[in-house]
């Protein structure tokens, strides 16, 4: 994003977490409330990024391991004659998906709680900031009208 820009910028999805990173703009005259909002958003972004990057990496890795072990059990190689990676069909993968989901359920429950709390807090702060800005704008207009 260009240096002179006065708003936040959002980028393409991250390779690992699939989340879109945001670069927050911090104006010089940022109030304490606005700073709290920006920091809350940055923290949430960082926490989400960590969680999903790690989770997706684990998924990919465990999936590879699962496929490898299944293929070995069947006596096949990872790559067939044409050099393409051998895959398992959906029914065989179903066992892996079920397993992975149940293993990670606890982790997800905790993440959900965390995410909901953050989401509410950020939205509430946004509301406060918007309200403050609106009042300020109204006060300025009143002053202009009076003058």
């Amino acid at each position: 994003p260009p240096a002179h820009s006065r708003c936040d910028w959002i980028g393409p999805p991250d390779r690992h977490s699939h989340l879109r990173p945001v670069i927050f703009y911090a104006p010089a005259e940022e109030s304490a409330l606005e700073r709290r909002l920006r920091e809350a958003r940055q923290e949430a972004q960082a926490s989400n990024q960590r969680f999903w990057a790690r989770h997706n990496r684990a998924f990919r890795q465990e999936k590879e391991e699962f496929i490898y072990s299944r293929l070995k059990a069947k006596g096949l190689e990872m790559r067939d004659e044409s050099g393409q990676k051998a895959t398992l069909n959906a029914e065989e993968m179903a066992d892996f998906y079920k397993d992975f989901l149940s293993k990670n359920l606890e982790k997800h429950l905790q993440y959900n709680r965390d995410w909901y709390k953050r989401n509410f807090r950020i939205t509430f702060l946004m509301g406060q900031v918007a309200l403050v800005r609106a009042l300020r704008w109204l006060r300025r207009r009143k002053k202009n009208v009076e003058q």
Partner: protein
Amino acid sequence: MSAARRCRPPRALAGLFVWHLRNTDVRQIPCQFMHLYHVANDRLITFQYFNFLKRMYVTQCNKDLSQRAKPKSDPIVSPFHELQQLDQEKKVVHKISPVSAVHQLWSEASSRNKWGELKSAAETKDSGIPVGAESKEDRRWKEMKLRLDDLPGILARLSKIKLTALVVSTTSAGFAMAPVPFELTCFLLASLGTGLASCAANSINQFFEVPFDSNMNRTKNRPLVRGQISPLLAVCFAASCGIPGIALLTLGVNPLTGALGAFNIFLYTCCYTPLKRMSIANTWVGAVVGAIPPIMGWTAATGSLDAGALLLGGILYSWQFPHFNALSWGLREDYSRGGYCMMSVTHPGLCRRVALRHCLALIGLSAVAPVLDITTWTFPVVSLPINLYISYLGFRFYRDADRSSSRKLFFCSLWHLPMLLLVMFTCKKSVLEKEDKGDLPRESPETAMEIRLP
């Protein structure tokens, strides 16, 4: 359906597929490509067929859904699940290892077959060429500034407008089936109120699910995920739709309908959405969410909760299961990775059993309709073929448990419901008939009005 299959999809779409496949590094086996091609065809055909059905069925109106006639339902459950835009395919793949790419593409394809985003289907159909440019656009950094001309489109996607339209059409079906003289103002108020309530519920759902939506292919392009709108605005929009919607229902129609609307919003946003990540019970809750709109339509017309309303709700409730379970069969990888507790992942046997069970229940419920004096006896007879067909597909799905049977069942459910409701409407027992038989006390128009406007 066979007639529709003879339609030729636009060349542009096929071209897109080829372009897409060439652009990925995945080496596709030719038969895989053909499969995708057919899937694309199917989707378009479904879309065309659907449009036809929609127009046919429009005594009323038309998010989703993505995933059944689940109003305000979440993407998964309601029939009205959102379709993925074609350009999503492109972005998907370079991030994913070749092994999973095949599954990924298929799951995308199947998710695209959902009834929801007909709009995006139209967009991608119309804008065949710019799709390539879109994916490049997506890779750029964008300002998080709200543009007013984009706002209607963004809000439409936020509220899953297509799903909402379908929900409103089930409400209209409920209204139409009620054994009272048709009242236009009441009908319009009920439809509008339900539509607003549905928009609100869908927006809150998207507000809650941002990081999960980013990780699932079907939902990657939602406005909150892309940062096109701030969470605050999404909540304000939801409030500004929901509060007037419920108020309209309570004051303009009747308090019972308003209460049902509010309850449905609560059920969808506060029960179904969190429950999706906690237990498989979410599917049953979601089916109830889908069943309530026709009940709302009925209560809007009659002002009371009769057996007829419950029957209509029951039909929608039963319909949700074959629809959703068949759909979720193809999305198991995304659900597993995203942390969603769905029957298709954790209890696959149960998933198929439940789908079959409810297909059969539909036959039973259709037979109950004339007993309750809602329709004539021609209804179970005429609807028997389509109910038997969906039960047959449900049985095939139960026995084979593979993606072709799940897809067949899903597509069948898409046309089965509108057709069933249409047949029901045409077989509706006329109010005059009942009055002549002395079953109903003669209602004067004024008393009818009194019931509806407290």
